[in-house]
C-alpha cells in the first residue's frame, strides 16, 4: 500500500484470500484483497451482492463460516497478526477492540434477553464489570446513541423496539468497550431514509468523539460519499479501485465505478433520457470469466482484457485501479 505511515496505521489487510470449498467447486469469495485503515478514519467498501465485501469483513473478525476458509494473506491489527492468534486471543479482541454492526439488528440481537442484559454482558465479559455497574454503563450507552428514556429501554426486549432503535442498540453494543475499529456491514440498508440519516450521523459523530476507525460496507454510493475518507470498490472478489473519496468521485478510473455512478439517476439529468445502465449481470462466482472479471460487461473492453487479469496499480497520488484501459482518454 502506498504512503506507509506505520504510526497512524490501525489495520492492514495484505493479499487476503478467502475461498469457499463447495461441492460445485472452489469459490474465490475474496481474492487477493489488500487495504489499510488508519486510526480514526472511515474506509468505505462498495460493491454489489456476492462481490466479497461481507466475507472480507468476516475474515477480519475471523468469523468466516464453513465451507469458507482464509487461504492466505495477512491481517495486522494494532500490532497483532490476527491470522496467527489463538481462538481465545481473537475472542478477547472481538467486541473489545474490534466490533461489528450487522445489517439486520433483529437477527443479531437475542430475542429472549433484555437490551440491558445484552449490552452489559459485553462489559462483564471484556471489562470484568459487576452486574450493576455494567447495567449503569449500558444505560449511559443507550443515552449516548440517542435512545430516549434509556432507564426504561434497558428492561425491554428487542421486539419492543423499532428497526432504527434496534440498530442504535447494536451500535451501543459495538461501542461498549470503546473499540479502535468498528466494522459496519450495510448498517442502514434495512432502514427508512429519514432513520438512515439519523444512524449515519450517529456513526460519524461516534468515530469523531471516540477517535474510532470505521469500515463501512455499503452498496449505496451516496452513503459512502457522505461518510468515507477512503473508498474501495469491489467486484467479483477483488478490489477494482481504491482511492481517497473526493478523488474517486471526482475522477473515477475503473469502468465499473464509472458505470455505478452513471446508473444513479441524477437530479440534474433530463428526465427523458435513459439511465446509463451497466449491461449484463454480476457473474456467478463459479463462472468467472478469463482475464478481467468485469470484461463481459465493460464498454471499454480491449482484447487484452479477455486474456490477462490486470493488477491493481497506482495511477498517481494513491489512486489505485485494476484496469488495462486508460479511461481518461475517452470523453466521458
Amino acid at each position, binding site marked *: 500500500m502506498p504512503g506507509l505511515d506505520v504510526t497512524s496505521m490501525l489495520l492492514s489487510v495484505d493479499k487476503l484470500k478467502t475461498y469457499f470449498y463447495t461441492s460445485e467447486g472452489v469459490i474465490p469469495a475474496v481474492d487477493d484483497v489488500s487495504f489499510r485503515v488508519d486510526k480514526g478514519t472511515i474506509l468505505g467498501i462498495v460493491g454489489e451482492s456476492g462481490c466479497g465485501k461481507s466475507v472480507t469483513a468476516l475474515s477480519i473478525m475471523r468469523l468466516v463460516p464453513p465451507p469458507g476458509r482464509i487461504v492466505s494473506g495477512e491481517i495486522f491489527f494494532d500490532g497483532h497478526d490476527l491470522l496467527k492468534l489463538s481462538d481465545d486471543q481473537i475472542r478477547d479482541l472481538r467486541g473489545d477492540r474490534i466490533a461489528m454492526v450487522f445489517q439486520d439488528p433483529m437477527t443479531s440481537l437475542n430475542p429472549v434477553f433484555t437490551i440491558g442484559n445484552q449490552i452489559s454482558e459485553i462489559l462483564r465479559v471484556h471489562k470484568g464489570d459487576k452486574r450493576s455497574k455494567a447495567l449503569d454503563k449500558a444505560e449511559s450507552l443507550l443515552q449516548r446513541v440517542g435512545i430516549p428514556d434509556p432507564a426504561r429501554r434497558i428492561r425491554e426486549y428487542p421486539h419492543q423496539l423499532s428497526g432504527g432503535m434496534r440498530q442504535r442498540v447494536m451500535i451501543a453494543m459495538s461501542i461498549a468497550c470503546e473499540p479502535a475499529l468498528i466494522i459496519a456491514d450495510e448498517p442502514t440498508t434495512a432502514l427508512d*431514509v429519514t432513520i438512515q440519516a439519523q444512524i449515519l450521523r450517529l456513526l460519524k459523530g461516534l468515530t469523531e468523539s471516540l477517535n474510532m476507525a470505521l469500515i463501512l460496507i455499503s*452498496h449505496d454510493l451516496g452513503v459512502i460519499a457522505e461518510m468515507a475518507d477512503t473508498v474501495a470498490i469491489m467486484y467479483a472478489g477483488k478490489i477494482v479501485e481504491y482511492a481517497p473519496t473526493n478523488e474517486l468521485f471526482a475522477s473515477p478510473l475503473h469502468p465499473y465505478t464509472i458505470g455505478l455512478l452513471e*446508473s*444513479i439517476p441524477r437530479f440534474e439529468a433530463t428526465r427523458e433520457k435513459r*439511465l446509463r445502465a451497466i*449491461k449484463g449481470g454480476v457473474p456467478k462466482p463459479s463462472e468467472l470469466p478469463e482475464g478481467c472479471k468485469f470484461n463481459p460487461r465493460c464498454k471499454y473492453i480491449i482484447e487484452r482484457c479477455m486474456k490477462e487479469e490486470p493488477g491493481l496499480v497506482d495511477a498517481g497520488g494513491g489512486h489505485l485501479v485494476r484496469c488495462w484501459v486508460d479511461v481518461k482518454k475517452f470523453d466521458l
Partner: protein
Amino acid sequence: MQETLLTVQDLKKYFPVEEGIFGGRKRVVHAVDGISFDITKNEVLSLVGESGCGKSTTGRLILKLIEPTEGKVLFMGEDLSRVSRKRLKELRRDMQIIFQDPYASLNPRLTVGEIVEEPLIVHKIGTRQERREEVFRLLQRVGLNSEVMRRYPHEFSGGQRQRIGVARAIALKPKLIVADEPVSALDVSIQAQVVNLLKELQEEYHISYLFIAHDLNIVRHISDRVAVMYLGKIMEFAPVEDLYKRPLHPYTQALLSSIPVPDPSQKGRKVLLLEGDIPSPIYIPVGCRFHTRCPKMIPRCKEVIPPLDDFGGGHGAACIRAQEWA
C-alpha cells in the same frame, strides 16, 4: 384534458389487531386513512413514503386484492366494489401488478414459458400456437432470449426474474400496472436496466403506472406526478419537478434532504434531520399526524388536522404552515 383511467376516492383500510396475551383490547391499524387521487391514461404516478405509510396497501386496494374499509376505486369509470365477479375478471385484464420480490412472486414449479403464458390462458386468448409465439415475443421484448422458456425461475438472477415478472405483467397489454417497489430488491447496476425497461414499455404500450417506491432518485426519473404518504395519508401531491424543486410539506423536505448524495463535495450540505421514529399506525398522533417528528411544528399542529391545500398547478400539501414558505 387527459382522460382519467383510475380514480381513488377517500379510500380507507383498517386492519383489526388484538393486543395483550388474551386478546382483550381490540385495536385498529390505520393502514390507509382516507386518500384520494386519480391517474390519467399514459401517466406514471408514484406513491412514496417510508415503511408503514400505506403505499403497498393502497396498491393492493386498487387491484381489489383486498377489500377497502371505506371509499371507492373507479377503474375506467366503473366502481370496483359494485361490479360483478365476471366483470371484475374482465377489468383485471387491464390492471396488472409487478411485485417487489422476484424470488417470491414467480411460481417455482412452472417454467418461465408457463409463467408468462398463464395470464393468456386465464383470459382465453389465442390458440396454443399463438400463445407460444406471443410468449416468445414478450420474453424477447423484456430482454430474455427464447431458450429461457423451458427453464425454471430458480435458474435466474434477481434482475432476470424481475424481467420475467414484467413480461407476465404486460402479457395482456394492460392499461394500468401497479409496480410495487419493482427494483428495490435488485443490485444497483441492475436497477437502472429494469427502470429503463419499465419506461420503454410504458411509452410503447401506453401503460399507466402506479409506481410504489421509496427510492426518491428513481421516482424522480420515472414519474409524472408524485404523492408523498405518511401514516396512511397523503401529505403532499405534485407534478414531479415541482415537488423536488419546491417541496412544501416539512416531511417531503426532510425526505428529500435525507437522500445521501453521491458527491463528496456536498458533504457539509444542510440536512433537515427528523427526530424520533415513525409512530405506530395503531396510535396515530392527533392533529397533524406528522407533528411528533416535525421540525417546524407549532402548538396548533397538535389540534388541527391539516387539509390537503391547493397551491396551484396541481400542487397540494397538507400543512397549516405551508403558506409561509410556498
